[in-house]
């Protein structure tokens, strides 16, 4: 077992292991969304499967963090009902203020 520092904490890892392996072992919730630094250098996503980790490496997982969200109950319920979210927002209708009161675009 080799010792790595993952998100600031010591972690025992069986080598050989790639960045992708470590992502899996750490149960990263959304592996497609995480940014990874090894020894304070960002790793390209296409290298996750090939970059081998070494004893003593420092690895940081960085996650997107958006905001507290106001998209309250409607979308939540829709999500629970299995209704798909679709791309495209109506943010551009700047002249009609009332459209904005639907929470579509509320800031944090």
């Amino acid at each position, binding site marked *: 077992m080799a010792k790595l520092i993952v998100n*600031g904490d010591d972690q025992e890892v069986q080598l050989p292991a790639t960045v992708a392996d470590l992502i899996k072992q750490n149960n990263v919730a959304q592996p497609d969304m995480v940014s990874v630094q090894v020894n304070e250098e960002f790793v390209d996503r296409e290298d996750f499967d090939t970059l081998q980790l070494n004893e003593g490496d420092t690895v940081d997982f960085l996650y997107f963090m958006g905001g507290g*969200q106001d998209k309250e109950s409607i979308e939540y319920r829709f999500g629970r009902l299995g209704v798909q979210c679709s791309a495209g927002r109506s943010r551009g209708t700047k002249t009609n203020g009332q459209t904005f009161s639907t929470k579509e675009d509320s800031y*944090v």
Partner: protein
Amino acid sequence: MFDFTEEELNRYSRHILLQDVGVEGQERIREGKVLVIGAGGLGAPVAMYLAAAGVGTIGIVDGDVVDLSNLQRQIIHTTPDVDKWKVESAKETINAINPHVKVETYREFLMADNALDIVKEYDFVVDGTDNFPVKFLINDACVMAGKPFSHGGILRFEGQTFTHVPGTACYRCMFKTPPPPGAVPTCSQAGVLGAIAGMLGTIQAAETLKYLTGVGELLTNKLLTFNAKTMDFRKINVKKTDKCPICGTNPTVTELIDYEQAACDLHQ
């Protein structure tokens, strides 16, 4: 040499007492022009502390109105403000805190076609938004305009922030492109503890005041993250990267982009 009135000297006395700030620092704060984008959970404490601190000009961008569900964390708005424009409600609170502050309101959302025009008027920009299209837009506009800014994000019990000044790591150095619409919880009922917005917003306000006064070390090339469940705070060193799509050696982002965001329409 500084034309502070007795009232101002009294009002700002706790700043002026600080050796690192003093009258000179307070003058820099008064000369400061800060743009707060989003008058929500983060923008509220930022704008309120900057107003109290005596920042000379505060610009606020928000095209939304106050909703009852905002009041759990957006403390610049109060119950009688429900249904008011957020920028108007915020301006009233700022003026009540400190009538010396000049407030510029932009009752619109930041878009690719207005971002540079708005941002260029200010010394420092604070990202108080909750969605990735605008977070990337703020980053890109500030990098292009050479403006420093404070980035902030919160979710559930966690927060993260960094400060960018020209030449240091930007948002795209860390996250190259926005997540696909709906991929990361801002389009679901993830929720947030209201006080987390205050924790992160006051960090952003402190960074703004540090920038204006030149005191201390900014959160540049560092991503500060915290988890309020454990109260673990962590600073992750990050580097500006040559491969960055906007501030790298071969930028691919050369103009501002309005990214799409999940709108959760009833398309089946």
